[in-house]
C-alpha cells in the first residue's frame, strides 16, 4: 500500500512528498526529517531569499510609472485582478437576468414577438485570458504534433527521406516566431475567409505561429527515436511478415514513445514561450495581449500587473512541463526513475 502510494507519487513528479509519507509510516524518522528539509525546506528558503532580494532591489528602481513593484505590490495587483474578475462575472449575470426579464415581458405582451438573445460582450478578465492562452497553445501544439509525428516516423524509417528534408528542417527550426507572424497573418487573412468564422483570425494566427515553432523538436526526436530502434525488433516484424502499417503502429511507434514524448515536452515548452510573443502582436485575447495592453496603458498599476502575468506564465509553463513528464512516465515503458 505504502510502496504503491510512493510509486504513484514519484510517477506524477511529487517525489518531494515521499519522505513525508515515509515519516507518517514511522520509517526512520531522523533520515526522513533531514530529507524533508533537503527537498522541501531548502527550496522554500531559496524562494524566500529571492523574494527578499527582489523587494529590496525593486524599491530602488524608479521608472516613469513609479517605483518598480516588489512582491507585496504584485500580490496586491493579483488580488485586484481577482476582484475585477468577480465583478465582471456579476455584471455578466446581471446582464443575462435583465435580458431574460425583458424577453419575458415582451412575450407576455405579444406571444408572437421575436425575442433576441444577445451574448454578453464585456471585456475579458485576466482569468479569461489565461484560458484563451491555454486553448490557443494546445490547439497549436496538437496541430504541430499531428504534423510532426507522422513525418518524424517516416523520416526515422527512411534514411533517404530524412537526408532529403533534413536541411529544410535545420533552416526552418531556428526562425523566430516574430519573423513568422507577419507571414502567417497575411496568409490567414487571405485564406481564412468566412462570413461567420468559427475562430477569430487572431486566434488562428497565434495558433499557427505556435505550430510552426513547436513542430521541430517533436519531428527531430521522433525521427531519431524511430531510427534508433533495436534492429532486431524490426526484424521480428519482418519474420512474422507484419504489414508495414502494423510494423509502424505495433513496433516503431511504441518502441520510440519515450523519445517522442521527450520531443513533445520540449515542443510544448517552446510553444508556450512563443505563444506570448505571438499573442502580443496578433492581439489574440490571451496573456500576451494582457501584457501588451498593460504596457500601452501605462498606469501606476501596469508594471505590477505585468509582473503578475510573468509569474503566472512561469507557473503555467512549469505545470505544463510537469504534466508532460507525468504523462511520459505513465505511457512509456521505462521505469519512473529513468525518465527524467
Amino acid at each position, binding site marked *: 500500500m505504502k510502496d504503491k502510494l510512493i510509486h504513484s507519487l514519484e510517477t506524477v513528479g511529487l517525489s518531494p512528498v515521499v519522505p513525508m509519507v515515509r515519516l507518517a509510516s514511522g520509517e526512520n524518522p531522523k533520515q526522513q526529517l533531514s530529507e524533508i528539509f533537503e527537498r522541501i525546506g531548502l527550496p522554500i528558503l531559496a524562494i524566500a531569499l529571492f523574494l527578499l532580494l527582489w523587494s529590496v532591489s525593486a524599491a530602488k528602481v524608479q521608472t516613469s510609472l513609479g517605483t518598480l513593484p516588489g512582491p507585496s505590490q504584485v500580490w496586491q495587483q493579483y488580488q485586484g485582478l481577482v476582484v475585477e474578475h468577480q465583478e465582471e462575472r456579476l455584471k455578466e449575470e446581471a446582464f443575462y437576468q435583465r435580458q431574460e426579464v425583458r424577453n419575458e415581458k415582451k412575450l407576455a405582451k405579444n406571444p408572437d414577438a421575436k425575442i433576441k438573445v444577445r451574448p454578453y460582450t464585456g471585456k475579458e478578465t485576466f482569468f479569461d485570458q489565461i484560458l484563451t492562452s491555454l486553448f490557443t497553445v494546445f490547439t497549436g501544439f496538437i496541430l504541430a504534433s499531428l504534423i510532426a509525428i507522422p513525418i518524424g516516423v517516416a523520416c526515422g524509417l527512411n534514411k533517404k527521406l530524412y537526408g532529403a528534408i533534413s536541411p529544410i528542417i535545420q533552416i526552418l527550426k531556428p526562425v523566430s516566431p516574430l519573423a513568422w507572424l507577419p507571414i502567417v497573418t497575411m496568409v490567414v487573412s487571405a485564406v481564412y475567409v468566412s462570413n461567420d468564422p468559427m475562430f477569430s483570425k487572431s486566434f488562428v494566427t497565434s495558433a499557427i505561429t505556435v505550430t510552426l515553432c513547436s513542430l521541430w523538436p517533436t519531428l527531430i526526436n521522433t525521427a531519431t527515436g524511430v531510427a534508433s530502434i533495436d534492429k*532486431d525488433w524490426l*526484424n*521480428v516484424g*519482418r*519474420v*512474422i*511478415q507484419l504489414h508495414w502499417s502494423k510494423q509502424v503502429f505495433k513496433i516503431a511507434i511504441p*518502441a520510440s514513445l519515450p523519445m517522442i514524448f521527450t520531443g513533445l515536452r520540449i515542443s510544448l515548452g517552446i510553444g508556450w514561450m512563443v505563444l506570448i510573443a505571438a499573442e502580443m502582436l496578433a492581439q489574440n485575447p490571451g496573456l500576451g495581449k494582457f501584457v501588451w495592453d498593460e504596457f500601452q496603458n501605462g498606469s501606476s498599476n501596469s508594471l505590477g500587473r505585468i509582473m503578475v502575468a510573468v509569474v503566472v506564465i512561469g507557473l503555467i509553463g512549469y505545470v505544463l512541463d510537469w504534466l508532460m513528464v507525468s504523462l511520459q512516465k505513465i505511457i512509456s*515503458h521505462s521505469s519512473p526513475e529513468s525518465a527524467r
Partner: protein
Amino acid sequence: MSQYLQIDHVSIDFPTKNGPFRALDGVDLKIAKGEFVSLIGHSGCGKSTVLNIVAGLYNATEGGVVLEGKEVYQPGPDRAVVFQNHSLLPWLTAYQNVELAVREVFKGQKSKAEMKEWIEHNLELVHMTHAKDKRPDEISGGMKQRVGIARALAMQPKVLLMDEPFGALDALTRAHLQDSLMEIQQELNNTVIMITHDVDEAVLLSDKIVMMTNGPAATIGEVLDVKLARPRDRVALADDAEYNHYRSQVLKFLYERQRNPAQASEKVKPKLVKSGEAA
C-alpha cells in the same frame, strides 16, 4: 535422408568504401528434415550472416537457399528466428509477445480460442506459464530467452534459426535452457540451425557441427557428424570417450587450424575460455 533445406553455394558481398567486401564465399550445406545443425567458428567469421541469409533478412550475392523446393528470398514465419538478445518487445507481456506472432501467422486459420490455446501451449513448452503476464524487464535473462523460443516455436516454423540463443546467459542458466531445448527437440523434431561459440553446447545438442573458417571470404571448413545416442545426458557424457573425441575435434579445428584472428595479438576470447572450463 532427404534434403530439406539446401544452402547452395552462397556467397555474399557487402559494399564498403574500398569496393565490395566478400564476407562469405561458396557456403554449401544440405540439411535433412529434423536435423539439428550447429554453426561454430570464431567471431566475425560470418556465422550470423549465413543465418540471416537463410532467414531471408539478407540476400545472397551468389547462390541461394532452397527450402522444400522453394527458393527463399524474404523473411517469413516458416523460418522463425530466435535472436541473440531475445528481442522481446519490452512494452508487451510474455503472452502478448507470443500473441503478436501467432495472430499474424495464423490469421484466418485459427479461431481466437484456438490461438489462445496455442499461445498457452507454447509457453507451457518452455515452462513460462507462471510468468506469462510479466513484461520482459520483470523476468530474468534466461526467462526472456525462453519466451523468445516460445515465440519462434509458436510460428510452427519449418526451420528454427537460433543466433547464439544462450550466449548472453550464465553457465547454469545456459545448461538449463540447453536441456529444455533438447526436450522440446525430442518432442517436436524440429529442423534447427543454431549458431554457437560454445564447443560443449555444439557437441551436446547437434546432429551435425559445421565449422567455419575465418573471414574474409569465410566458408565451411569441416563438417562433423555427431552420432551420440539421444536422449543425451550432460553428466553422463562428460566422461564419455566418444563425446570427448568430438569435442577435441572441434577444439583442434578452432585452435590449431583456424586460429582466432584476434588471438595472435591479444588474448583468447573470454567466452571460449569459459566454455573450455565448463567441461
